């Protein structure tokens, strides 16, 4: 007796076909395409081949400088990514960098002005660097000359009662802990100011501002501010791959607080690193907190009738949320150049 073969219904047949199609697609895609590393390298050559060497470049230290009449100023060319001996030529511009002329005999790595004068104010100096027959690379530095000596505020000892620290709490984020203390040894040299900052929970950054009680500049008695130079040494005492810090110039004036952009060099290592910013002018500072400025106000005000300015610094810490970062500051220095 023959057994009747029952044909599957149409929907079951469709379901089976769909399942076979799905399985077929999975096996095609799962086979990996038959290619391999070579195919990936053809499409993304940077993923496989070593990156090409960085091109030669040069920078000038300092990138900007203000000096008093009669003082010595030295510019240094810092070459990078050259494979051998480097040749130099210094050039000078008296029209703000539009056109340059070679300085006769200025072919060394450093160029020194033995005694700057007011005629040098605003001059732009360019360092050309090249190797053999290669094209030259260049970098510039602007010189400003002041007729009056600068007023310098500096602290390398950091008495605890000379400084006020305030955390910058961002709306929507919880407060974070911060502890500041003077440490007798381990600075560059001797004492330094140690800051232990918690990265705000739920965030990757914490910011603490520090004002010096004793570093007050009064334009009404000391003169209008032309520009500000800043320097410090920083040390990320608890060095890690995920933490680093930045410093910026910070000051208080008439109930408002202002901050500059961060120093171009971050604090990333557990060794003392020099940070510096040169030639900061009024327009280089933005309102950090305080009452909004009216249209008729100058914020900040660097004029000869301006209110006193109390200087400090702002330290911003980056890291994993909730982690604690130990860091140090030494040789804090603000140089106020006057008109």
């Amino acid at each position, binding site marked *: 007796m*023959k*057994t*009747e*073969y029952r*044909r*599957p219904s149409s929907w079951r*047949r469709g379901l*089976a*076909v769909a399942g*076979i*199609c799905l*399985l*077929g*697609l*999975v*096996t*095609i*895609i*799962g*086979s*990996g*395409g*038959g*290619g*391999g590393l*070579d*195919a*990936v390298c*053809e*499409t*993304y050559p940077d993923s496989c081949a070593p990156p090409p060497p960085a091109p030669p470049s040069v920078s000038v230290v300092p990138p900007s400088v203000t000096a008093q009449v009669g003082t010595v100023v030295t510019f240094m060319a810092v070459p990078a990514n050259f494979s051998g001996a480097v040749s130099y030529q210094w050039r000078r511009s008296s029209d703000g960098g539009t056109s340059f002329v070679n300085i006769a005999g200025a072919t060394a790595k450093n160029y020194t002005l033995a005694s700057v004068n007011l005629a040098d104010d605003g001059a732009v100096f360019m360092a050309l660097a090249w190797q053999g027959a290669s094209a030259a690379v260049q970098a510039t530095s602007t010189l400003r000359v002041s007729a009056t000596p600068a007023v310098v505020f500096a602290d390398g000892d950091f008495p605890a009662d000379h400084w006020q620290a305030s955390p910058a709490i961002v709306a929507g984020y919880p407060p974070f802990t911060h502890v500041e203390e003077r440490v007798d040894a381990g600075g560059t040299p001797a004492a330094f100011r140690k800051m232990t900052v918690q990265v705000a929970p739920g965030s990757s950054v914490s910011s603490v501002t520090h004002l010096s009680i004793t570093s007050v500049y009064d334009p009404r008695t000391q003169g209008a501010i032309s520009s500000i130079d800043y320097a410090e040494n920083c040390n990320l005492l608890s060095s890690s791959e995920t933490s680093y810090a930045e410093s910026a110039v910070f000051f208080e004036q008439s109930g408002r607080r202002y901050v500059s952009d961060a120093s171009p060099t971050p604090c990333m290592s557990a060794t003392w690193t020099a940070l510096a910013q040169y030639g900061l002018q009024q327009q280089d500072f933005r309102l950090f907190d305080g009452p909004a400025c009216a249209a008729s106000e100058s914020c900040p005000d660097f004029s000869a009738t301006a209110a006193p300015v109390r200087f400090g610094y702002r330290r911003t810490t980056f890291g994993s949320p909730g982690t604690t970062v130990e860091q140090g500051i030494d040789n804090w220095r603000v140089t106020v150049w006057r008109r």
Partner: protein
Amino acid sequence: MTSLHAAGRHSTLVALGCIALAIGSLVYLTDRDGLHAVGIPAIPALAGAHLFGSIGLWLPSLVHPFAFSLFTAAVLPLRSAWRFGACAAWFALNAAFELGQHPAVRSDLGASIESVLGRTALGRTLSNYFVGGRFDRSDIVAAAIGALAAAGVLLVAQRLVERDHED
């Protein structure tokens, strides 16, 4: 009334497809060093054996449309022309996936896939298939041979069915 032989031929088609898939899987186990297809484990005793030689380069591309054409035909009516259509469809699908690995199109295709599917597991897998794959004309030829071979099997099976009916 269709005899039990028809069901048996359906099973035969499935069995042939499974045997073909097994051979194709063996290629990945023995000849594709360092490449592990999804679902095929690496067996150290077999890896590097290179049983198939140069044939192993395109054999999977032949096996896949052959096997899945037979699987699809097995669930379709015995005398349906759709069975041969399935062979054509599986060839077209394999050829399309192979063409998608061509250097002229794979980068844009990968980017389009990721823009539609996002950086999901499916999106990345599919994108990587095209971008990381290697276009080979012989794979398209192999897919055509596999589909034709499946069509040949189906033709033989259909002739057998017709002979059963005559009997």
